């Protein structure tokens, strides 16, 4: 028979616990596995936020980057959220998407104060990211912030991101807000299509 008895794994024994040293130092190790190990170990250390953020800026290995992001989400402080926000302006799509996903997974009360100011950023892409993010944060200001986008943002694509975010939330109270967009962009066929889709969604038709 080709099956051999596997070596015994004792789940209660912390195999790596005896390893000494400061995980902060491992963040700069040449071995990606060591850097991942460092990020794992730092996920409960709020004092490590600056180091994790700095490493995130330089990190090119996707698996380490993912672990750095996860560590910042696990720390979950306002400082951790603030450390993520600047990376939304990165040219690296993978990093940007990772940051969006990470901010979504942080407590809304922590993420919202860092994300909401982006609604007034000069870069419309940042405003779109902010609208998408706010749509997924269970926060009491969510509807008001997205309504503000729909009523005031000059860029139709930002407004449509807010519409999409409101539709994903599924709250029928959002329908009057969405309908106001037709008045701002009466000749835009995609606005008409989106508002109609929202009506159908919220009426259950």
């Amino acid at each position: 028979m080709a099956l051999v008895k596997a070596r015994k794994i004792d789940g209660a024994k912390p195999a790596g616990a005896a390893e000494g040293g400061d995980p902060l130092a491992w963040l700069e190790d040449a071995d990606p596995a060591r850097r991942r190990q460092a990020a794992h170990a730092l996920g409960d250390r709020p004092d490590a936020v600056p180091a994790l953020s700095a490493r995130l800026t330089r990190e090119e290995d996707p698996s380490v980057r993912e672990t750095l992001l996860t560590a910042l989400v696990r720390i979950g402080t306002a400082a951790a959220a603030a450390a993520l926000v600047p990376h939304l302006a990165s040219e690296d799509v993978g990093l940007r998407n990772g940051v969006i996903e990470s901010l979504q997974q942080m407590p809304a009360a922590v993420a919202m104060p860092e994300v909401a100011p982006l609604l007034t950023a000069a870069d419309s892409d940042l405003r779109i990211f902010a609208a998408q993010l706010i749509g997924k944060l269970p926060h009491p200001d969510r509807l008001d912030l997205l309504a503000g986008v729909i009523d005031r943002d000059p860029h139709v694509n930002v407004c449509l991101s807010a519409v999409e975010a409101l539709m994903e939330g599924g709250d029928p109270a959002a329908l009057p807000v969405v309908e106001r967009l037709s008045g701002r962009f009466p000749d835009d066929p995609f606005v008409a299509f989106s508002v109609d889709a929202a009506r159908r969604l919220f009426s259950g038709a």
Partner: protein
Amino acid sequence: MSLPSDKGPSDKGDTAGLSAADYDAFCRFLRERTGLSFTEAKRYFVDRRVSERMAAVGVEHVRQYLNLLRFQASGEELQLLVNRMTVNETYFFRELYQLDCLVNAALDEVVRGRPPGSRVRIWSAGCATGEEPYSIAITLLERWSRVDEFEIELYASDIDSQVLARAREGIYEQRSLQAMPRDLVAKYFTRLDDQSWQIMEELRDSIDFSLVNIADPQQMENFRGMDVIFCRNLLIYFDDLGRREAASMFYDALSPNGFICLGHSESMSRMSSLFVPRRFPDAILYQKPQS
């Protein structure tokens, strides 16, 4: 202690235990949406799981919860409830297409370039009462043409010590064996009585069963160098961050180019960007990149 199922129709109306009308509405909804069918005899089973899910999402009234199931855009809560409803329905050769994929394609890729006699490590994470790791063992022995060329280590783990004890014992009733051909039952099991069969000692001894919480990084550090991980219908019970951390730990546990098999309704792309989806003729698996 009397069970809710022993009672007549409840007049509590809107909280689980479900009233007769609500129970009917629930069963009709689940049947229409999922094909799952529950009779009156399953009332306690359904009631308990609905109550658990209502508590988990913070909904007090059954009709509110039913509305959540009906109208939630993501369908996540329905999936969670369905998994709770089906969690005890495991059996040998469940989701056979992934076992097909293992022996038809994935293992050949795993051992490419390895000399004869090399170790191959396969881990069933969340193995419950053992049907999955034993199904893997039998599938390898019966259907992988290169099985005798390698030394294959099978690991199985669960967080529940009671189900692990049952897995080690390897005694199953007819329901667990329903999808297994009779000749394989005869080959690998000993009939104990009219109701139960025990899997042969050689197979029981070949698998390392261990008590492991996959959410615990220290415990997960013991698992390294795995070539294939089966983690089916387990991560659905984790929150987003928990799934992401578990995916990261599985990444560390896998060898480069190793595979992870998730349940048919689960997608690694919604949990983590660490793995590459690989579409094989029989199934989609997720692979750890070479570097």
